[in-house]
């Protein structure tokens, strides 16, 4: 019979018990966050508490920024203004023509009974800072749930796709850059329309995976979004092919690309509105509702109903 004498001082549970409790809790959090992504509510709750501290931490930087803007001579702004006016004049011609072409395209598409090209709308946001996590490539922007940002929205800058909104907090949201490891963007090659998916490598480069060794890909090929994912609108530049390794011992070629957009830059980016879901043709919708998969009698007849965008 061994029994311990009562402790003189109340010190709570033993350190080892506390250690196992807290580490089990942390491990559970890690597991649920990595596997199920179901802890967004907890994340948002904690972020409400940490947001004021973050604001305080960024206040000196913002102040420094504003001060430098204030004290810079006015001539720089005048120069910039003049340059922008010139550039606008140069691009006005193209823009006017584009508008006319868009209208014409719209008419032609209507004639061909093809679904109209979707309009692009979005909100301009400011990148606040890069996330401190050294393992991933993410940035935080200054618009969140308050500005109706939702997870999954594509993000572009003036030259191409930057990434995708992955987490939304009340006042800020988190963008995963396309160079983050295994971040995927469905693309197609402009030159020949070949479709594929480009993956981030985590080191600032991208890789075009699952392309056969004899695929028609050349150095300098421009990849644009194919729009097949239903998230990105088609036609935005994503990356440029820089290096192709064709090794006969592998069935796939290793194709490395660099992003076109200033992915590592800080500045303003545009968060595009989520793409409206593409509805199935009425025939297919009624089939899906009835739950009976009828065998196709005429494959050619169905093809006519398929809509492209």
């Amino acid at each position, binding site marked *: 019979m061994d029994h311990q004498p009562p402790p003189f001082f109340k*010190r709570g549970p033993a*350190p080892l018990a*506390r*250690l196992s409790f*807290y*580490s089990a*809790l*942390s*491990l*559970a*959090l*890690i597991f*649920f*966050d*990595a596997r199920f992504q179901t*802890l967004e509510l*907890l*994340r948002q709750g*904690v*972020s409400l*508490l*940490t947001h004021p*501290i*973050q604001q*305080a*931490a*960024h206040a000196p*930087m913002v102040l420094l920024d504003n001060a430098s803007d204030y004290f810079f001579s006015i001539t720089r702004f005048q120069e910039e203004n003049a340059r922008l006016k010139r550039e606008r004049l140069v691009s006005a011609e193209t823009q006017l023509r584009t508008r006319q072409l868009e209208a014409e395209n719209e008419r032609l598409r209507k004639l061909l009974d093809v679904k109209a090209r979707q309009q692009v709308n979005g909100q301009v946001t400011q990148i*606040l*800072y*890069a*996330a*401190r*996590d*050294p*393992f*991933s490539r*993410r940035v*935080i922007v200054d618009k969140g749930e308050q500005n109706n940002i939702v997870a999954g929205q594509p993000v572009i800058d003036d030259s191409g796709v930057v990434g995708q909104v992955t*987490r939304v907090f009340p006042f800020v949201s*988190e963008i995963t850059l396309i160079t983050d*490891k*295994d971040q995927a963007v469905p693309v197609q090659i402009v030159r020949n329309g070949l479709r594929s998916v480009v993956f981030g*490598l*985590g*080191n600032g480069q991208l890789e075009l995976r699952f392309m056969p060794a004899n695929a028609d890909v050349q150095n300098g090929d421009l990849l644009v979004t194919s729009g097949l994912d239903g998230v990105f609108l088609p036609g935005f530049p994503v990356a440029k092919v820089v290096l192709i390794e064709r090794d006969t011992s592998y069935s796939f070629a290793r194709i490395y690309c660099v992003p076109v957009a200033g992915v590592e830059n800080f500045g303003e980016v545009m968060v595009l509105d989520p793409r409206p879901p593409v509805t199935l043709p009425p025939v297919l919708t009624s089939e899906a509702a009835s739950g009976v998969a009828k065998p196709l009698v005429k494959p050619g007849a169905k093809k006519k109903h398929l809509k492209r965008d």
Partner: protein
Amino acid sequence: MQPTFSSSRILQPVRPWFIVLSLLAALLLNYLPTSAWMWMPDWVALLLVFWSIREPRRVGMGSGFILGLAMDVADASLLGQHALAYVLLTYVASSLSRRILWFPVGQQALHVLPLLLMVQIVQLGVRAMPGVEFPGLNYFIGPFVATALWLPLTVVLLLPQYQPVERDANRPI
């Protein structure tokens, strides 16, 4: 008679609000947009290890867990990654506190270095399981910088406890 070690000076009891304030200041320092500088030490880990060595009764695994969650949310990292690392850190630090306090400050820093390296290694292990790119050896510079800061940090954080109880105009400190 116990042998006296170098910091045998009798200190005032620490004020709880000072601990809280210093931990919040560390959180603020960690939130500064310094992600481009990999050598920046993890201030929260450094302060946690300091207080759990000095005051193991007041700062322990609970504070480590809460601050870890705060770091995870702000860092956009896996939820629980910092929490696990800080809980392990505070456990080891508080269980070694009696041993570490026996040494002069310079040698205390040598004890702290492996603890801070453990924080980085735990986080690397947690992130390596789902598969991430190794961020390079620069990732391990932070703990060495933090170790170099141990001496000035000890002086600064213990300053309030050096104050005498009764004010004496002729006393230097």
